[in-house]
């Protein structure tokens, strides 16, 4: 299995989601190799699942006040706070036949790369169906997947340093009211790498790069000029638009 591997780079929310869709289309058209990319979000952002109600999930006014972008993903799943410093996001875009046909199994296959990466740092993590990775019963990573014309896109986040209070403030969860109880509830459900080892974020990234590459023929590469241009267009015409982000 030959993959193009793009090392961690920082983009805004709209560009990050546009790049995933552009690369997905390019892999479908065989213009790009199957791709693994790591990225971070600047400014810090909230992404919501394709089928979620934006206002139902996110404290939109607080995000606006704090300069936090909100973007709707093409994948389903839940809302995620992508802190600029506190997390790392990955995408895997490859033909479906690289993975199990069974959805949950295919989640597990890619989540196992995350688990192996965390293992390198001495953190014992387990796959929690349908789409999460847990450490000591708390979520450290969540992923979302879609499939289009025979190609699978799975992207997900690995928490390095979680700001529980901020997560509780920005995301509504299943209640509309923010309070200290909600912060405690986030703390009960969510954990991060920093709580379990002394690794730096750079060490986490190296461990993940290694575990995601294992057993594959890897071409380390950067974004093509053309895909960056296509992504910029898609970011401005779709992902930054209210018609898309607030469609539900």
């Amino acid at each position: 299995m030959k993959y193009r591997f793009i090392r961690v780079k920082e983009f805004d929310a709209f560009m990050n989601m546009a790049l995933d869709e552009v690369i997905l289309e390019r892999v479908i058209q065989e213009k790009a190799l199957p791709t693994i990319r790591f990225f971070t979000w600047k400014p810090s952002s909230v992404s919501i699942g394709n089928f979620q109600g934006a206002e139902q999930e996110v404290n939109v006014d607080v995000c606006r006040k704090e300069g936090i972008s909100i973007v709707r993903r093409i994948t389903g799943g839940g809302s995620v706070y992508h802190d600029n410093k506190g997390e790392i996001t990955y995408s895997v875009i490859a033909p479906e036949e690289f993975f199990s046909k069974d959805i949950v199994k295919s989640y597990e296959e890619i989540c196992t790369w995350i688990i192996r990466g965390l293992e390198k740092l001495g953190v014992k993590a387990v796959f929690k169906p349908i789409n999460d990775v847990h450490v000591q019963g708390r979520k450290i990573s969540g992923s979302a997947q879609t499939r289009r014309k025979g190609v699978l896109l799975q992207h997900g986040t690995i928490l390095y340093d979680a700001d529980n209070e901020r997560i509780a403030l920005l995301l509504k969860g299943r209640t509309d009211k923010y309070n200290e109880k909600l912060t405690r509830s986030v703390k009960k459900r969510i954990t991060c790498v920093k709580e379990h080892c002394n690794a730096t974020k750079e060490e986490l990234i190296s461990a993940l790069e290694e575990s995601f590459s294992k057993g594959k023929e890897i071409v380390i590469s950067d974004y093509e000029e053309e895909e960056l241009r296509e992504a910029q267009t898609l970011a401005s015409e779709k992902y930054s638009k209210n018609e898309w982000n607030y469609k539900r």
Partner: protein
Amino acid sequence: MILEHKKKIEGGKFARIRIVVSDDSLESVRITGDFFLYPEGALEKIEGSLKGSRIPFNEDEAEKRILGVLKEEDAELVGITPKDLAEMIGECLK
């Protein structure tokens, strides 16, 4: 009249259904949540297939309509089932 029901499916995902009801039918159905579905456009088609459902609401009939859309679209729904969705609409109307 607008009615709503939300539910976390045991071992699955969370969904929220909002329906607009006239005297004898569903005028519109809106499904939101953190489930997975692809192709993604199938959700609008599922909502469209439920629009106009008669009241009293027949959950079996609604489940069949959702299954029909999934088959037609060659779509996969993960984290919630057509039966769950049909039952949730039933709950809205209770």
